[in-house]
């Protein structure tokens, strides 16, 4: 099993200065932009993206070409790049922002050309100060070289990019919450309908919201054609994907591979197995929101559909590995606490439910659990996500609440013995 380098090729070839515009230009950089400007046919660009069958890399996996096709007509339309990467386990956008910012910027310009957009925002999470600095530096270089601003490379295309820093809110990775945040409001998700970004997005204008990795793929697709891209990976999960591998592996990191290999092979090849020769007990296939798989489920293929059929999601492509000595109750508590902290507070089932789940798990983890806590956990989960099915049924505006249920159903379904071990064995008799 080998990596297939599309998005990480340039940064690997020129590790020390891949962020520099001259180095990028010398190595085929901005050639995709020049190609589309020469052809001057926006429709062709959209068709190439549709042909590539690329699906959004932020977590939801929506087909990008289809999304672009939905964008409503209006004089003012916006592109917003979602660089709010905050899903625990995920650090793939960070490397793209830090080490190849021009690839993203070129993708942004091509996307705006295709969709007749004159203003783009790159929204980067506040904690990514260093990546944001790199991107801003690259934006300034691109202005100087005439890739941004008025009359780009002598054509009548004009585009401005503003890099905007968030301020510490996971929920702003949800696209409508991100738009609220960019409008200077609380990062609370909007109701869909009516607030579909493609129709009523930023400032109520039609807006494309795309992930950093998705738009970074655009230059390659334009240079090599959508059909070539679709040959990589498998049907339904075309192209490469940057997986972030962390947890108890020997060599964590970002690895760009074609989708379709098994998780077991991935962990062995790139993670070089589990630290201290331990056994793998459980792993998270797609970020903290995703239900866990067990050490017996390492044959599952790394595609959006295979993971969904097995009862979880590929999500943001973050694989977190837990070894045999991991206390899974603590692990679940960590994830539930995350969602309790990050709940925006709009919807009662999420705001109250995640807090209740956190308190119950805290009680169990500290050795003060009660046997009745199991049914209480199930009851609270059921109020957030009725029936505890997968994909979850929603009682809330966005999927954050149901995400907090994932680690608990994972515990109950596959590791209930670990939970029971932390509970008293006898029911105390009331005196």
């Amino acid at each position: 099993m080998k990596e297939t380098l599309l998005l990480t090729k340039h940064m690997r070839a020129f590790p020390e200065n891949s962020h520099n515009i001259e180095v990028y230009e010398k190595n085929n950089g901005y050639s995709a932009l020049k190609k589309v400007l020469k052809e001057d046919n926006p429709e062709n660009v959209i068709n190439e993206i549709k042909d590539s069958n690329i699906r959004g890399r932020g977590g939801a996996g929506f087909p990008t070409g289809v999304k672009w096709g939905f964008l409503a007509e209006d004089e003012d339309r916006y592109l917003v790049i979602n660089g709010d990467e905050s899903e625990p386990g995920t650090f793939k956008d960070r490397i793209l922002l830090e080490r190849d910012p021009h690839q993203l910027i070129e993708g942004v310009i091509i996307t705006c050309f295709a969709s007749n957009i004159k203003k783009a925002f790159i929204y980067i999470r506040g904690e990514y100060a260093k990546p944001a600095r790199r991107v801003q530096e690259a934006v300034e270089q691109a202005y100087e070289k005439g890739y941004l601003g008025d009359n780009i490379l002598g054509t009548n295309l004009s585009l401005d990019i503003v890099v905007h820093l968030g301020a510490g809110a996971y929920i702003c990775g949800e696209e409508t919450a991100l738009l609220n945040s960019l409008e200077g409001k609380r990062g609370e998700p909007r109701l869909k309908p009516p607030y579909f970004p493609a129709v009523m997005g930023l400032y109520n204008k039609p807006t494309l919201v795309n992930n950093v990795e998705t738009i970074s793929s655009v230059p390659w697709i334009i240079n090599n054609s959508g059909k070539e891209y679709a040959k990589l990976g498998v049907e339904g999960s075309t192209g490469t994907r940057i997986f972030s591998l962390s947890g108890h592996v020997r060599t964590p990191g970002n690895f760009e591979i074609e989708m379709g290999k098994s998780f077991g092979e991935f962990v062995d090849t790139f993670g070089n197995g589990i630290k201290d020769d331990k056994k793998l007990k459980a792993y998270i296939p797609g970020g903290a929101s995703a239900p866990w798989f067990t050490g017996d489920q390492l044959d599952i293929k790394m595609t959006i559909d295979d993971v969904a059929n097995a009862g979880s999601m590929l999500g943001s492509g973050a694989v977190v590995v837990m070894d045999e000595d991991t206390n899974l109750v603590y692990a679940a508590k960590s994830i539930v606490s995350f969602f309790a902290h990050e709940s925006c507070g709009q919807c009662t089932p999420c705001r109250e439910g995640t807090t209740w789940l956190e308190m119950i798990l805290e009680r169990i983890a500290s050795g003060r659990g009660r046997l009745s806590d199991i049914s209480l956990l199930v009851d609270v989960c059921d109020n957030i996500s009725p029936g505890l099915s997968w994909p979850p049924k929603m009682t809330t505006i966005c999927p954050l609440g149901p995400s907090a249920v994932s680690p608990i159903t994972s515990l109950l379904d596959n590791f209930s013995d670990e939970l029971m071990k932390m509970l008293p064995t006898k029911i105390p008799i009331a005196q």
Partner: protein
Amino acid sequence: MSWDNELLERAHKIIELYPQKRSALGPLLYLAQEKDGFISDDSIVEISNLVDITEVQVKSVSSFYSMYKEEQTGTYLLSVCKSISCEINDSRSVINSVKEFTGLENYETDQDKLFTFEEVECIGACGGAPAVQVNYETVEGLTPEKTIEMCEWLKNDKPEIIVADQLQNKFGGTKSFDWAIEDNTGSAYTVPGFQNIGTAKEKDN
């Protein structure tokens, strides 16, 4: 204290970046925090005038986001990650060593206003767990010992500008990925160092 002309000039430059004034609210809150170490009531008034919204609207936004602080921070904001990849790689021992060294509990600031300590959710450094940020500059692959060394260094050397690469070279271990590109820019305040808000500072060698 109200904002001086230099800060107002920076504020107006930020506002100009956006089609609507209110979009500048987030960046302006960072200016407020740079000025006082937290979002003061005076700054809330100032910002409400700058972007034409009420003071309550400003407050409702500043209280929503965890990076805007309601109480004065110390010179160095120590943010220790406790999310899943850090949790299972023993972030607790890093948290404990910070607590031990500073004597602080979560969200507390010491009397000398040197350190503020907070436990935070995922900072996107999962491959280099456990990870910490100092004034939003990341250092990865810490051990409890290196964490204490880092706190001692901050206390004794009192660096004016915190740069991720310097922290990493001095105290860090396993990284999420090869950082490769050398960097000398960072932050001088308890806000992210970023050009658009005028807080990115270059360090003299």
